[in-house]
């Protein structure tokens, strides 16, 4: 049984078919990469998965802990809180005027809300809430250590350099304790050293936390090195799927990418 099963996913914007009858699956403890030229519909797939867009057709089933969630029927925030799917955004979306640590505390909102008795216990400063808050800070510190931002914990997130913001966004997603992590171009704009660190981080999450990772990425070196399986989209359609070695040599993929380069050249 796969962690995530996508079947017949279609999403239209007016006349434009951004995603056209796409199906694939993702497994626990595996990295599944979603690649394709710009405008292929990768981000749209993420938006459908995480409830931000309502797909025209498609079944998006997530099975974890013996329960099945139909993602296409859930509101965006329920996808995160109930189905435990976390994501990052292609254009970074952190809380710039809040501190790095506060960003990670916001990610643990639902747990802390319950512990604070929906604010009432928190107002009187009950011990239960304080213990939960300490645990939340500990979890935040754990991820800050992993992404190397511990000594920046108290500065405004907006003042972090670009690479730091990308890592913070991943740490924030992990603080929600997801079963599936969707990363939208996490290496975009990173220098080679940062990109290498990102590889290590993703490999670590996969190995130690055993969650499923869906990865949109343009950098082929990254993709080929760390993914277990690759899905290739072009013009909203799936044109290839398989392990890296297969996809690398698939004529359909080569054509799609070469075709794109021809356009860019001409």
């Amino acid at each position: 049984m796969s962690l995530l099963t996508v079947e017949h996913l279609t999403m239209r914007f007016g006349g434009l078919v951004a995603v056209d009858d796409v199906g694939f699956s993702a497994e626990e403890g595996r990295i599944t990469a979603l690649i394709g030229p710009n405008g292929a519909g990768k981000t749209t797939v993420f938006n459908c998965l995480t409830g931000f867009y309502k797909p025209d057709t498609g079944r998006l089933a997530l099975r974890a802990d013996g329960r099945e969630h139909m993602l296409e029927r859930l509101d965006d925030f329920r996808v995160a809180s109930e189905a435990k799917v976390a994501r990052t955004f292609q254009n970074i979306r952190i809380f710039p005027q809040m501190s790095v640590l506060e960003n990670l505390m916001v990610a643990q909102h639902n747990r802390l809300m319950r512990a604070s008795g929906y604010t009432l216990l928190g107002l009187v400063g009950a011990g239960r809430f304080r213990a939960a808050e300490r645990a939340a800070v500990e979890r935040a510190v754990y991820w800050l250590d992993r992404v190397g931002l511990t000594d920046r914990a108290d500065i405004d997130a907006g003042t972090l350099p670009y690479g730091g913001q990308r890592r913070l966004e991943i740490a924030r997603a992990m603080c929600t304790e997801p079963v599936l992590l969707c990363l939208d171009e996490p290496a975009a704009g990173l220098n080679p050293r940062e990109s290498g660190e990102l590889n290590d981080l993703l490999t670590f999450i996969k190995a130690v936390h055993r969650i499923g990772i869906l990865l949109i990425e343009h950098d082929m070196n990254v993709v080929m090195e760390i993914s277990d399986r690759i899905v290739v989209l072009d013009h909203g359609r799936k044109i290839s799927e398989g392990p890296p070695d297969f996809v690398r040599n698939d004529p359909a993929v080569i054509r799609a990418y070469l075709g794109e380069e021809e356009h860019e050249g001409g």
Partner: protein
Amino acid sequence: MEYFLQQLINGVTLGAVYGLIAIGYTLVYGIIGMINFAHGEIYMIGAFIAMIAFLILGPDGGGYLILALFTVLIVSMMLTAVYGWTLERLAYRPLRGSTRLAALISAIGMSIALQNYVQLTQGARTKAIQPVIQGGIELAERDGFAVSLSYIQIVIVVLTLALMASFSLVIGKTALGRAQRACEQDREMAALVGIDVDRTISITFVIGASLAAVAGTMAVFYYGVIDFFIGFLAGIKAFTAAVLGGIGSIPGAMLGGLLIGLIEAFWSGYFTTEYKDVAAFSILVLVLIFRPTGLLGRPEIEKV
């Protein structure tokens, strides 16, 4: 039936005024995505300028009434346009690229400032002029109730239709219209292909303000009374009209204006006048809850 017909005529006239103001909201919203909260005040200023210009020309327009009215209209349009231009320049342009909220707060500040500016310079009292265009056509009569279509109502509706038609042509066919639509869709791209975005936005404000001035001028001659506060309610109703029709859509603004005018006329005609403003607000709330894209607006999916 006669009563109904009369309310229909009144409603259409009212709708023409609201529609002209609503176009200003819709144009600005289309191009920079913000509610020009001060647009109602622009309408009020248009009305004041028209009244002052008319009083300067004298009660009978120096003998040439038609010419005088035409002059009043043009003067009001031109001077009000300067207000529209300045408004954008001072309060909105510096905030482009800032948050929506900041722009809206600046707009509210401008609205308060303009209202009080007129109150200070022209006084808080209601101003009145004698009716200028009198008489009308009696359409039907029964049991002593006459349905009349006054000349001023005809002027208002005809003028509105003419402006609408020429205006749709401008937006549809000229380079200015194309520039506006380009800025609407993607301002950065528009700038890259050589469109002067600042200028296009300025012109949009100027057009919106001059149409509001037409509405203000018509209000002066239709109602005969104005005060510094008329912009508030008229602005909100016209905004409701723009939202009802589908904000960003010019035919929508006209349709919305017409509907709001009719609803108001029938509401006051058949129910109570006290709650007629509540009617407009309720429509606004209901439309926004159930159909935020309005009647003619295109649905849009928020980009994530």
